[in-house]
């Protein structure tokens, strides 16, 4: 391999290239069997918490510390092992998938014949043969196929999920080399850029030596066959490998997901730091106090407890440091080691529930919700802004041609016929000349006699200007059997990456201009049965910035024509002739109806013009440097002086329940922004129809701003209007150009306006602008949690930018799904995903985190307190085994099970009362107050444990019926026993949803502790050098006083918490708590829960009412009436507070109430 330039790799074709092996197996996954342990360990210890425990462990190994290294080593080992198993498992899955690719047999041309090898052995420069339905083993430049024109079809379903067939081309000079022997004699050099991850970009050129003459051809993405794609409808192809193994685009796209961290994780880290502070404080305090005590010899070294020589002689400073470290080790458990692993397990296991949810399963498309990252589950409960794409997300993306405007006349499609506006199918035949033509056109076989020239040209333009493919291999694929079985009249099936194009081509077919096929060089259409072949000269592909695409064709008569279609804003400025004004009016009318509009135009080239066009296109396409820029320049040179033909209006139906979902999100306090590429009028009308904008809203506009100052002025005006008119809700419409102006200079002003609007609609947005808007909101001072939802490749940047990215499994490929954090089939599922799953996950993880810190405070504070009674000698209160097992055995499972199954309110209630979502907004359960509450509770419980036991035992009385005494280990065990029980029961108090598993692990944990302690204390352990715990636990339990003490301490600890909970519930109930009570009424939830019996009242006085309630709880009429009242009141309560205005408009409430009664 020679390198001509830094960025260009030069490949000599047909030669074996010496490159180091191993370079080529795809190993995007992290590990191999050999490096798994070291590499995984390295990865894990990069985590601060793990590293911290490693340090503690090493300190324990090095210096004489109060606890054995096992106490931190074993939990660390446990945590590391569990994480390693999880990561190893995930990696193994990846390995399995990749082995199939890497080990697949491949045929390579070597020394004049086909040799079978494995795909991992394919080298750069190898010529590879791929047969039909095989996947490509590397990124190949197509040399030839079995077709004479050198095309082949592939699907990239495994790469981006797009199932349509795509045509790829070989350069004509190599396309003739269809056999191995011909390839052997081929002399060519391929130059290409350095590997890059973008699937849709490839720049290179091929120089073919043909009889001493060198021919240079450009290579683009259409020449490149991507690894992982599959060959379709083509018997075999030959290609030269340009990127293999890790360098292939697929492998480069394997990049690990951008690390999004949830708000909970951030607060978790804050808590960790706070606790680290507490830990250091305790350690420093203890060290200082120790030295204060030690200053007197009678405490430091009384006659009964002399130091060893070594201790006496060691340096004071070393001693001091070692003491400090020893205290650090003693108290280190205050940082919960198993927190991370439990959180990780919780997220990993908990995320299955999303995929399992039947409510998130879409029957029609057989799609269930998909979780790509489990790290963000709880973030679903924190969303404040939803940014949604329109097409395919709010709408079906199922395009249906509805109307068109041809040369200034508006037409409607009715029953497959084009009818001029104002005439319906019911009208008597023959009245209008157009109609006659329409009705008769199918019988007209000779010419387009019944269409006017403009109409025919328009239809031809529409049926030619596209990149639709036809699956003309009739026996191939399941789709055809489906078609045959259904007896569908369609002779062919169109495949298009854009549903608009498909809808248009299908529409022209219905009208008699049928697109028959495209064999690479020619496009064939049948106009009323008469076949016409157009030579396809160039395709000017669609791109999002230009927002139009064009084809240059040679008509059968030899004329060179450009057909172009695109967004009206990108065509009208370039239109020179045609009914521009009328068409513009029509386009606006279409947009008002919510139709997607495209404008069609053409340009005829003179021979000279075409030559220049051809030359410039060729130059631009063969350019190696700045090809994109040069192409854009050429395209704009070509697509001008257009002759306007007309416009099309395609309908995109709203998805079901979009309105309800948006309303639910709004009730939940979430602001919904619609970001769309559509034009202003379309976007507004869709916004209105999907309930994003209310009819009652005051709609503010920031559109078509041309200059900075104008934009600023408009913004100020809007801000003033909002201030003046703060009663009514406002909606804001912004378009792309104005937005970029607003963002450039007046970001703050813009944000201010946006925040006071209850709905914002951004239209005409480029993909990057979408991401920019998301980032703007995300980084605004309040740092709100943003969620972006979309279905297309143009939404990817916004999905990646937002805190939570959701992909819709739509029709525009799977790009969005692949880059999303969660993927769902329908927009309406968002409501359940956020309101129910998000709420649950948040509650679960928040309680999990708080509880973890709580239980470790409980755990370690008695140790700290004990130091005051043992001269700060670092004597542990608990035995090493208890220290070790507390977090990994005795208290680990209940909280894990809790965090998987907890449901504090019934899911139906959460979904039907979106306002409950507000109870957890702004990370409410992990804010400073709850954190303080939990921490203080931890400390106070620890004090009760310690001093309870101290008063009981410390007053040096015997607790046993035989007068014998307990020692320090019994004291520690008593504290520990009380602690395990209290901590477990504390979680039980937090649990609202007791499945059999909760019962099992809660009572099981306590039972396990007892059984384990009996066992552990029942044996003289042969390998332990002390037998401190021998029969300690049995002796403790044999004391009646100890039992009474355990009960009283546990009750004392939990009792204030219960009182607090009850008082708060009655005096200051949250809406969630209110709905817990309400929940007891509807029949279903009542039947299987005990709450309906104990709900509300108690005691004997209310027995009568209780019976009455029990009797009537399944009374349907009553339940329903309750619901009505309930929802109505909800509206009263919550609709008004959605927007910024504090007082609702009377009208709004009225409409809400009316709606609710309609519902019922």
């Amino acid at each position, binding site marked *: 391999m020679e390198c001509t330039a830094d960025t260009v790799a030069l490949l000599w074709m047909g030669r074996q290239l010496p490159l180091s092996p191993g370079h080529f197996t795809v190993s995007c996954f992290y590990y191999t069997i050999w490096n798994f342990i070291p590499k995984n360990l390295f990865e894990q210890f990069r985590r601060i918490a793990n590293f911290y425990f490693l340090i503690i462990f090493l300190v324990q190994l090095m210096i004489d510390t109060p606890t054995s290294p096992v106490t931190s080593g074993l939990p660390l080992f446990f945590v590391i092992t569990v994480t390693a198993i999880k990561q190893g498992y995930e990696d193994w899955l990846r390995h399995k998938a990749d082995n199939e690719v890497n080990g697949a047999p491949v045929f390579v041309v070597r020394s004049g014949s086909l040799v079978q090898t494995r795909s991992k052995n394919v080298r750069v420069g190898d010529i590879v043969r791929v047969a039909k339905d095989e996947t490509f083993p590397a990124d190949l430049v197509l040399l030839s196929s079995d077709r004479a024109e050198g095309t082949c079809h592939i699907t990239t379903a495994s790469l981006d999920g797009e199932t349509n067939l795509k045509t790829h081309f070989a350069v004509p000079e190599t396309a003739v080399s269809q056999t191995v022997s011909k390839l052997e004699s081929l002399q060519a050099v391929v130059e290409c850029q350095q590997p890059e991850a973008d699937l849709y970009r490839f720049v290179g050129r091929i120089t073919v030596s043909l009889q001493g003459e060198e021919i240079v051809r450009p290579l683009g993405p259409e020449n490149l066959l991507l690894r992982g794609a599959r060959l379709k409808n083509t018997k075999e192809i030959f290609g030269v490998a340009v990127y293999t193994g890790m360098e292939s685009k697929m492998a480069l796209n394997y990049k690990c997901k951008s690390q999004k961290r949830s708000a909970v994780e951030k607060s978790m880290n804050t808590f960790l730091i706070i606790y680290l502070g507490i830990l250091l404080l305790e350690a420093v305090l203890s060290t200082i106090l120790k030295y204060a005590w030690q200053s007197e010899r009678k405490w430091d070294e009384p006659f009964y407890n002399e130091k*060893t020589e070594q201790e006496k002689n060691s340096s004071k400073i070393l001693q001091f440091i070692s003491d400090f470290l020893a205290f650090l080790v003693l108290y280190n458990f205050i940082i919960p080691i198993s927190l991370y692993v439990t959180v990780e397990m919780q997220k990993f296991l908990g995320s299955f529930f999303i995929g399992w949810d039947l409510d998130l399963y879409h029957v029609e498309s057989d799609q269930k919700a998909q979780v790509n990252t489990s790290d963000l589950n709880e973030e679903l409960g924190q969303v404040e802004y939803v940014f949604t794409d329109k097409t395919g997300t709010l709408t079906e993306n199922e395009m249906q041609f509805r109307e068109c405007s041809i040369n200034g006349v508006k037409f409607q499609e009715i029953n497959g016929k084009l009818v001029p506006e104002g005439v319906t199918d019911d009208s008597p035949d023959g009245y209008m000349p157009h109609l006659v033509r329409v009705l008769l056109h199918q019988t007209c076989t000779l010419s387009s006699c019944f269409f006017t020239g403009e109409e025919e040209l328009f239809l031809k333009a529409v049926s030619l200007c596209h990149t639709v493919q036809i699956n003309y291999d009739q026996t191939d694929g399941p789709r055809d059997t489906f078609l045959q079985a259904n007896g569908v009249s369609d002779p062919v099936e169109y495949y298009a990456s854009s549903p608009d194009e498909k809808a248009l081509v299908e529409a022209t077919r219905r009208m008699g201009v049928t697109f028959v096929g495209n064999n690479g060089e020619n496009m064939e259409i049948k106009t009323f049965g008469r076949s016409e072949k157009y030579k396809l000269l160039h395709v000017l592909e669609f791109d999002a910035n230009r927002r139009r695409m064009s084809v240059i064709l040679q008509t059968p008569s030899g004329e060179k024509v450009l057909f172009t279609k695109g967004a009206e804003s990108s065509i009208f400025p370039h239109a020179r002739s045609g009914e521009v004004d009328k068409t513009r009016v029509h386009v606006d009318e279409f947009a008002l109806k919510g139709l997607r509009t495209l404008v069609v135009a053409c340009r005829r080239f003179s021979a000279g013009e075409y030559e220049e066009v051809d030359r410039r296109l060729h130059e631009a396409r063969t350019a190696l440097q700045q090809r994109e820029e040069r192409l854009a320049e050429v395209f704009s040179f070509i697509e001008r002086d257009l002759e306007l033909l007309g416009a099309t209006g395609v309908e995109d139906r709203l998805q079901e*329940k979009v309105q*309800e*979902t948006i309303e639910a999100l709004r009730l939940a306090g979430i602001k919904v922004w619609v970001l769309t590429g559509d034009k202003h009028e379309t976007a507004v009308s869709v916004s209105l129809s999907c309930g994003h904008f209310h009819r009652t809203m005051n709609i503010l506009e920031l559109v078509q701003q041309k200059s900075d100052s104008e934009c600023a002025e408009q913004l100020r005006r809007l801000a003033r209007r909002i201030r003046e008119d703060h009663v009514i809700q406002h909606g804001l419409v912004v378009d792309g150009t104005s937005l970029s102006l607003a963002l450039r200079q007046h970001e703050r002003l813009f944000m201010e306006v946006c925040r006071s609007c209850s709905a914002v609609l951004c239209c005409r947005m480029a993909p990057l602008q979408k991401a920019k808007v998301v980032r703007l909101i995300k980084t605004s001072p309040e740092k709100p949690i943003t969620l972006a939802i979309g279905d297309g490749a143009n939404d990817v940047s916004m999905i990646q930018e937002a805190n939570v990215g959701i992909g819709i499994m739509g029709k525009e490929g799977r790009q969005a799904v692949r880059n999303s954090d969660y993927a769902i089939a329908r927009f309406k599922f968002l409501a359940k995903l956020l309101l129910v799953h998000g709420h649950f996950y948040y509650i679960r993880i928040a309680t999990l985190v708080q509880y973890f810190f709580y239980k470790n405070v409980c755990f370690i504070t008695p140790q700290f307190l004990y130091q005051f009674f043992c001269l700060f000698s670092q004597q542990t209160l608990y035995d090493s085994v208890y220290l070790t097992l507390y977090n990994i055995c005795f208290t680990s499972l209940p909280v894990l099970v809790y965090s998987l199954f907890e449901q504090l309110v019934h899911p139906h209630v959460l979904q039907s009362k979106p306002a409950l979502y507000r109870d957890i907004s702004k990370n409410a359960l992990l804010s400073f107050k709850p954190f303080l509450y939990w921490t203080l509770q931890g400390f106070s419980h620890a004090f009760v444990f310690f001093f309870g036991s101290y008063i009981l035992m410390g007053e040096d009385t015997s607790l046993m019926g035989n007068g014998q005494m307990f020692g320090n280990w019994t004291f520690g065990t008593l504290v520990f026993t009380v602690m395990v029980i209290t901590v477990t029961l504390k979680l039980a108090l937090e649990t609202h*949803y007791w*499945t059999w598993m909760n019962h099992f692990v809660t009572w099981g944990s306590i039972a396990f502790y007892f059984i384990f302690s009996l066992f552990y204390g029942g044996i003289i352990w042969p390998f332990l050098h002390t037998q401190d715990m021998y029969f300690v636990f049995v002796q403790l339990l044999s004391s009646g006083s100890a039992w009474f003490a355990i009960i009283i301490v546990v009750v004392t600890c939990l009792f204030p918490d219960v009182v607090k909970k009850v008082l708060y519930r009655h005096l200051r109930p949250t809406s969630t708590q209110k709905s817990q*009570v309400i929940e007891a009424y509807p029949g279903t939830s009542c039947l299987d829960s005990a709450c309906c019996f104990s709900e509300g009242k108690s005691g004997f006085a209310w027995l009568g009412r209780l019976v009455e309630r029990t009797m009537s709880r399944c009374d349907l009429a009553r339940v329903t009436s309750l619901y009505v009242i309930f929802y109505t009141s909800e509206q009263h309560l919550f609709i008004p507070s959605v927007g910024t205005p504090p007082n609702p408009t009377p009208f709004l409430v009225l409409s809400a109430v009316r709606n609710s009664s309609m519902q019922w």
Partner: protein
Amino acid sequence: VMASGYSAKEEDGHHSGALGPAGGAAVRSRKPDNTAFKQQRLPAWQPILTAGTVLPAFFIIGLLFIPIGIGLYVTSNNIRELQIDYTGTESSSPCFACSQNYSWNMTTPCVCSVSFSLDQPFESNVFMYYGLSNFYQNHRRYVKSRDDSQLNGNLNSLKEPSKECEPYRTNDGKPIAPCGAIANSLFNDTLALYYNDPNGTETQIQLVKRGIAWWTDKHVKFRNPVGDDSNLTAIFQGTAKPVNWQKPVYELDSDPENNGFINEDLIVWMRTAALPTFRKLYRIIEKNSSTSPTLPRGNYTLKITYNYPVRSFEGRKRMILSTISWMGGKNPFLGIAYITVGSICFFLGVVLLIIHHKYGSRSSSADLTH
């Protein structure tokens, strides 16, 4: 508004789904299983902590705890206990002289006697404790300074004690048995109790020295090493006595069942106390006849062979006589705690009842009629 209709519809989907999978299983679809587990519909008990649910619990706790507390308090109060401090730091104290001359190896033991009187008779078995204050048996260096393997009769450990015993591991190159700081500082005062009959005679009270250590300690955890010779002296040949001891371990008692490592005084001492002020069981005074009290009312003399120095660390020494109930020694704390918690529970129950009556009915009805 719409959300409600929405959920109702979803519910419909649920039910149809419930019927679905059995029939539709033939077609392999990605449809999730409609199991209670996967749909998070596991049958569950959903308790809510309202005044209604908690009130009965409060009353029950209150009604249970108060009588229990009274019972515990009364039990504790019925226990007789007498403490005598014989440290002798005050010059007026009879043991003042003994406490002043500190030496471990006094050839002539210093004996002092303290007189006291019992106002009330001790009826059942009486337990005699010695108590020490300011003695940090829970110091880490102290706690770990022992070799359980040696005490369990392991011959290797007898000759080669654990490093944890430093600096009480060897003496003059010979291994110390039992090694370590705990054993070395064995409490070695001897207490004897005399009843001063009103007629002037002084009768020594029989003190039982067996049964003061945990049974498992005595029989499993502590064992004398077993050699070829059954003679303890021979087995301990080659070991040194702890530095502070007056006699070697095999001469602790004449009774072979209470000698060597299984000497109960040693075992009791080896169970390190949790806190710096502690007591340890010393002797038991068994009740002899069912008619007369174990310790009748009257005057007694405690004769102390004063060996154990505590002056250097401002320690105090006590002798405690106590009767025992099923719940142990005198400990009013439990009873008080139960009474307090029970009363608070009951009181809060009443408060909650009022709250429940005033607010509870309002808030529950508010949800329905708002």
